[in-house]
């Protein structure tokens, strides 16, 4: 719905793209085509450069030749000034892409006598436009006329006429104006330009300069209303509208290893999400950078490009330190996979840092960006600004599907879960490194404070660095509490001794019972033997007795036979 609306608007109001990084985004496509735009701001805020870049880009990218009318600088000065941005003005002029007209007015030489108009200026502009078939015109700074020519009343009328005339010609015009005390411009030029007014600002805060751009008005078009930081560097003008992008980046389901197998296990077995934002916070010396180095190493092994913003160590120092824990990064630097950008954070203002960061990212196109540490930007009272900056950076990285890894230093004795820049809401995976002090030594503990979208471990691991690399160990959790380091080792030894004693006891008891069984069985055997002896004795007696009684019976029957006894006697036998 909203999209339809904006395309509809874009159709009704044609725009002239500036091709200046970021500016087209916040203006929804560029400056109003065929209409004048006022760019105002104080001295040295970049009006001339913005205007010149508009012309040069138009001439080189969109085949729209442009006329530059300079009221202040000579051709030589202008050429030299923009050459530093890589614009070859003499060449463009020779190829009739740009027409440079310098207008010089000196009040002292001029006497006024009666009515006049600025038809001479009109003719010159007209001639210039016709000569190269220009579509774009810059008047920089037309206000100079007010100091150069007498009779402001006539000048105002002529200025109004000039802008109307340019509008009728259908050329897209930029006029620049010096910032005034109470008005946007010293001579109230904003009264004449009703279509689009852009304000540039240049201020110094905490000894670093910040340039900002704001669209004061843009008739008939949606536009960003914030103050957007911009900068001017060797590639020209760039505006950073990153916040305007909103939260509609697509999230990846792919996972990448942390470089430490056990840490992967803690993050449901697979590591970080690709394109997520990882924060490692901890007090000084807890191993944040080492964790980052391990992550870098594993990414480089996979052949991914890494961009490392170091604000504390120089690249060579960093690599030396990392090789002491078995991480060797030199090869990756040579292969161009690992890129360093080491500066002191105080070197530039925040905006410039952000801009250089974004430009470098665009240039190198890394899969992983590491910033170590993010707190380096905080100087005094600028936490909110740092947070906005990081927010913009995070949004930008998310949009580009770049995995971000931030290290953050927590001041000792402070709440561990409070980073200095309070950016926890931006973070997808937050690892906390902390010192655990037991038994006169400090050891490092690591745990996952949060990790969005995965079943992560709730365990504290001991984080150990040695010349073989980084290891995560189970901490001792037992009757004596949570133990690490040598305390853990001694406790473990104690435990082992106890266990051995226990096992011995068991064996002793087992042995005892076996013996008991043996003696019992011997007793049983004895009894059985005794019984058997008795039994056989008894049987013997029985058989003897039987034989005895048989004999008696036989003897009796013999006797009866002899006595001729009757049958009844047989029964007893």
């Amino acid at each position, binding site marked *: 719905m909203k999209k339809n609306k904006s395309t509809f608007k874009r159709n009704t109001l044609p725009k002239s793209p500036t091709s200046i990084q970021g500016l087209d985004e916040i203006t929804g496509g560029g400056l109003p085509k065929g209409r004048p735009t006022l760019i105002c701001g104080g001295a040295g805020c970049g009006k001339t450069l913005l205007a010149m870049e508009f012309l040069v880009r138009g001439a080189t990218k969109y085949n729209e030749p442009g006329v530059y009318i300079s009221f202040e600088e000579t051709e030589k000065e202008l050429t030299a000034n923009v050459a530093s941005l890589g614009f070859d003005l003499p060449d463009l002029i020779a190829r009739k892409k740009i027409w440079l*007209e310098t*207008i*010089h*007015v000196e009040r002292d*030489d*001029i*006497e*006024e*006598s*009666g*009515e*006049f*108009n*600025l*038809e*001479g*200026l*009109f*003719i*010159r502009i*007209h*001639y210039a436009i016709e000569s190269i078939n220009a579509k774009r015109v810059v008047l920089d700074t037309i206000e100079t*006329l007010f100091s150069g*020519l*007498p009779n402001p009343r006539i000048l105002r009328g002529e200025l109004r006429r000039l802008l109307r005339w340019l509008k009728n010609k259908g050329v897209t015009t930029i006029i620049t104006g010096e910032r005034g005390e109470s008005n946007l411009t010293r001579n109230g030029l904003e009264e004449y330009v009703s279509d689009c007014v852009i304000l540039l600002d240049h201020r110094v805060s905490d000894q670093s300069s910040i340039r900002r751009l704001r669209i004061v008005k843009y008739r008939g078009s949606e536009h960003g209303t914030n103050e957007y930081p911009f900068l001017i560097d060797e590639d020209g003008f760039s505006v950073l509208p990153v916040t305007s992008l909103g939260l509609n980046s697509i999230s990846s389901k792919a996972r990448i290893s942390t470089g430490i197998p056990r840490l992967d296990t803690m993050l449901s077995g697979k590591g970080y999400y690709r394109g997520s934002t990882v924060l490692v916070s901890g007090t000084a010396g807890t191993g944040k950078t080492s964790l980052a180095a391990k992550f870098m190493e594993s990414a480089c092994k996979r052949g991914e490009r890494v961009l490392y913003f170091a604000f504390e160590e120089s690249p060579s120092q960093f690599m030396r330190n990392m090789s002491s824990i078995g991480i060797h990064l030199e090869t990756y630097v040579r292969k161009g996979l690992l890129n360093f950008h080491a500066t002191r954070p105080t070197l530039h203002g925040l905006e410039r840092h952000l801009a250089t960061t974004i430009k470098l990212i665009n240039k190198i196109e890394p899969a992983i960006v590491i910033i170590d540490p993010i707190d380096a930007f905080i100087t005094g009272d600028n936490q909110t600004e740092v947070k906005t900056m990081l927010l913009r950076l995070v949004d930008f990285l998310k949009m580009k599907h770049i995995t971000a890894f931030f290290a953050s230093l927590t001041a000792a004795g402070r709440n561990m879960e409070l980073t200095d820049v309070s950016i926890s809401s931006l973070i997808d995976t937050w690892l906390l490194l902390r010192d655990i002090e037991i038994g006169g030594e400090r050891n490092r503990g690591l745990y996952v404070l949060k990790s969005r979208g995965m079943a992560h471990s709730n365990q504290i691991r001991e984080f150990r660095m040695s010349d073989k690399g980084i290891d995560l160990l189970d901490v001792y959790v037992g009757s004596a509490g949570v133990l690490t380091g040598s305390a853990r080792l001694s406790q473990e030894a104690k435990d082992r001794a106890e266990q051995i004693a226990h096992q011995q006891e068991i064996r002793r008891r087992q042995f005892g019972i076996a013996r008991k069984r043996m003696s019992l069985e011997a007793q049983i055997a004895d009894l059985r033997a005794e019984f058997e002896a008795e039994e056989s004795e008894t049987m013997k007696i029985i058989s003897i007795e039987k034989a005895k009684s048989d004999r008696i019976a036989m003897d009796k029957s013999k006797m009866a036979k002899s006595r001729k006894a009757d049958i009844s006697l047989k029964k007893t036998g």
Partner: protein
Amino acid sequence: MIIKRNRIKNSKPIQAPFKTVSEKYNLRLYIAGLTPIAVAALSNLKSICEEKLKGKYHIVVIDLLKNPKLGRDDQILAIPTLMRKLPLPIRLIIGDLSDTQSVLAGLDLIARRQ
């Protein structure tokens, strides 16, 4: 119709005039088409010259509509502009030249104001 080079030479010789004017005045009047204001400027200029510089001046009228390049070369913005090319230094007077005092001041024929 006035052409770009419009020489107005009036009875050249006669005599050496006021001491104030010892050199020849080389004047250019820039106009953009024959507008009423251009016509007024030219006639004002002529009468001033006839009065003060008789025989000592030379006027060239340049129509920028016909010669737009000259506007660039001579740095002309306002129309009409009267340029005193000689004697040096170059002086500019803008307007329809209706204010004779300021024309004379501009040509250094009387002391400049301010």
